[in-house]
């Protein structure tokens, strides 16, 4: 039987979450890395809503945007700007018939490989529950 393996685009900021993802690798955490496709940006606030839409259009089953913890943003408030776009994006996605659970923003500190593993694991589980994104 074919098992559904979702693909998740993970936007990582250069200063915190990218290091968090590396930390998960360095400490050989158990998480579904094979389902993840990481993309580095300088700041999570750089993630243009059209990147998210493009990711879904190209076949991603889910999108994670991971930034610095509130107050720790290298650019002071870029993470907050990223977070502010989420509710709008969720509404747009729903109009395309894409469940809002397929998009998630969270914070991962540099070195917090544990949290990175936890968030990605949960996202992949959620997507497995939702099944593949059926493009019209």
């Amino acid at each position, binding site marked *: 039987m074919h098992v559904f393996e979702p693909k998740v685009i993970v936007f990582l900021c250069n200063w915190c979450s990218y290091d968090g*993802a*590396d930390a998960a*690798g360095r400490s050989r955490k158990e*998480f579904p890395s094979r389902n993840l*496709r990481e993309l580095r*940006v*300088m700041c999570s606030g*750089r993630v243009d809503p059209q*990147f998210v839409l493009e990711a879904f259009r190209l076949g991603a089953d889910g999108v994670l945007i991971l930034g610095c913890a509130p107050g720790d943003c290298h650019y002071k408030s870029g993470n907050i*700007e990223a977070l502010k776009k989420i509710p709008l994006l969720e509404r747009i996605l729903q109009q395309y018939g894409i469940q809002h659970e397929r998009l998630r923003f969270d914070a991962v500190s540099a070195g917090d490989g544990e949290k990175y593993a936890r968030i990605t694991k949960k996202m992949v589980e959620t997507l497995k529950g939702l099944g593949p994104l059926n493009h019209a």
Partner: protein
Amino acid sequence: MPQRIGVYICECGPNISDAVDMEALLKAAKGQEDVVLAKPMGFLCSPDGKAFLIEEIRANDLTRVVIAGCSPKEHEQTFRDVLASAGLNPFLLQMANIREQCAWVIHGKADATEKARALIQAAIKRVGRHEALDIKTIECCPDVLVVGAGVAGISAAVAMAGKNRQVYLIEKEPCIGGRVARHEDLYPDMVCASCLIESQLDAVLHHEHIEVLTLTEMVAVKGYLGNFIVNVRQKARFVDMDACIGCGACFEACPVTVPALFMGEMAGHKAIHVPYPGALPNVALIDETDCVRFQGETCRLCLESCPFGAIQYEQTDGVRELKVGAIVVATGFGSFDPRQDDRYGYGKVENIITSLEFEQLVNSAGPTHGKILLLNGRIPGNIAFVHCVGSRTESFNDYCSGLCCLYTLKHAHQARLQLPEAGICQFHADMCLSGKDSQRFYQKVVKEDGIEFFRMSGPDAIEIQEGSGKIVIAHTDASGDLNRNRFDMVVLATAMESGKGTEKMAKMLDVKLGRNGFLAEADSKLDPVSTAREGIFMAGCAQGPKDIPSSVVQGHAVAGRIMGLLQPGEALALEPMACEIDPEICSGCLVCPSLCEFKAIVREVEGPKVFINQAMCRACGVCVAACPSGAISARHFSTGAIFRELRGLLG
């Protein structure tokens, strides 16, 4: 002309080669558009690997390079340098992280190979969109403004000033030296504070490359690292700094006597005075609020008595513009006001004073010439010292200031030296004695001074009230029992808090305050003297409570940071990835300027549009994501490059 992309896959010993099918990856890479070659290599970061890459780039006329291997956080700079050595712009590189984010965490070879293929494909697609970026430079000013001439600011100023660097040291008070200059003795060795600091103060005042501006405050700041323009306002002193030698002839002539505030900061003095005996610079000043001349009278006694013609009634406040490359905030601390908590009886019951007031009381230049006296002029029979006033409590400050225990021991010791017969007690919940000399000092005081210690169940387990002419301290001890003791004098060791003007200063400088009101560090562990705004630094108690040596260390640290950044005669490198606005597309909607945390987006002088100051942009790209017209481009993280990367990742 098509690109010539070279793809190099690092085996990283067995780290990568054991986890993936190298042959399959090389084959997949070779099949990509514009890829002219794909090769494996044992260790690309090794000297052999780097030499191999340089040779490869040159021999194959490569225009772009993809390196698949470890995290770019580990070796991106290494390989950018390799590209530069081979004559290629360093930004024409893209790394695919197939180690940390693939080989190390995917167990099955087929899965790891498939993910590595996608990551490499994304890098290849992206690198075709890379542009050669030049590192532009900008002229910078190596001079520095230090705000606050306490021990931290002075240490920074002396460390930085030199042949090619001017330091402006501004101080809002009429004299320099801050709190330390007002102390009598310092723990643990009871050295004389003013003797210790006086030579430093002299050095500052006579330094060829330090300009000291007293009675001066910062009023406006513009610019960025390397190029700040600061406006400072200097209050009129009404005395010529160069002519006055502080002889005091005018003090005698002045008809206005300002009474001493008991145990306050000042002894009794005249309307024209120096702030305290020994204050430096030793130059008089006229206090407008006390001088009768400024209340409309025609008194000219000081002017007539001055043998040097130094009195200048016509002086006015002056504003100056200073050009500096960096700013150091060393504005010191404030103290918890115990009036905020009724339990301490401060301000209501006589002879309850704060430790700073006690410091003045034992100071030979203080209101009692160093004698520990009660308000009625009598010698106290017993004194209590209370620890943790306003600290380690959720009601006020939850932190420990870290030095009150030690100075309170010092105060008890000073009291014992003067009052051999007096009862001297300490009320404490814990004893914070960190540092290499503190325990020794504590043992000495305990052993030699006959101090009685009362341990409270917590910092808040105390109530101080008046009771039949004495001060009654009720405290709950460590076993939970309530005790009452009577004293003639009580000294409250108040928490060190952020200075009064810190918030205003932070606003003016556009830097953040931390949770406790002190200035926030760029990184509390690795960069504790920098604020998050480039070019703005801090030292001493503006950053947090600390003792004298730690303040000096921060003064020196800040000097090191600045001297490393701003070298006289050298230009400052700008962020090569700084964003840019296309004026043809910008509609002038003004969404972006408010999003820029670095104030890099500026409006045109005439016209509705905005442009990005390349010296201030930090390349976060927040404005790019927000621009509704798509007028802003992020260099290196361009929309086109990210779209291509997405296509590679999902293809």
